[in-house]
């Protein structure tokens, strides 16, 4: 009881496609921008926080390099290895999002 806690971990990278749309970190790490964005949102549900392009796709790829890695080879439990190697099992998940709030971390 209380053991075995697991999760789908998340991290994100951000790329600039259009300089008029600020990234999550650009807004959060600049106090003036963050305040202006929040103010615009509170006043009229407007501003940088609502420039939302949406989630444009998701892939669950197989990354073969993972199965040749030392970390994979070092897994001792054969059942775990078999689970990971199942041909239908993806290695990871990648989301594509277009928004200043694409980033969770």
């Amino acid at each position: 009881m209380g053991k075995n806690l697991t999760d789908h971990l998340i991290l994100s990278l951000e790329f600039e496609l259009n300089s008029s749309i600020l990234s999550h970190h650009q807004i959060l790490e600049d106090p003036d921008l963050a305040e202006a964005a929040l103010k615009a949102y509170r006043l009229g549900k407007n501003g940088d926080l609502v420039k939302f392009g949406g989630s444009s796709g998701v892939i669950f790829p197989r990354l073969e390099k993972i199965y040749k890695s030392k970390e994979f080879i070092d897994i001792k439990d054969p059942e775990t290895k078999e689970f990971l190697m199942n041909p239908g099992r993806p290695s990871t998940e990648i989301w594509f999002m277009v928004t200043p709030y694409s980033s969770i971390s």
Partner: protein
Amino acid sequence: MQNCLSRGTITMGEKGQIIVDPNFLSNPFDLRVAIETIRAILRISLSPKWKGDIKAMLWGPEIKWSPDMDIDGIPDEVLAAFVRKVVNHGYHQMSTLAMGKGGEGAVDKDFKLRGFESLRVVDLSVCPILTNNHTQVNAYVIGEVAARKIIKENGGAVSNGIMAQSNY
């Protein structure tokens, strides 16, 4: 990320407080998946389809992003440092009362908590593994399976149709 092998705990502290220790990245395999996921994202960012559209990397590992960068040449440590700095939970934390066969596991196949007369747990904590999907699906299936068992046990009739109705 999918198929993380690290396992955390939920315990109760001396003052009754709940202590969640996710223990993320404690298994080196998870860090490998994270590193190769970042390489895959960088590879996508250099795809011909994006050519000219991506102007810069605004948030990422300590590397200079450029259209002719050598992704495989980036040292693992550089990517690992970024992973450790930013990795976060995915709101899919579960499996802390895992169901098991043959006397193993916190709950039995009827969702009954072992050691208790008639206390059932019907939520994502009973899933022994985290599957490769949004956990909402698992929650629906667990709810439906448990509902069928409880109805049957109490003499009720269960149709073969899908009981769960989604609002979406």
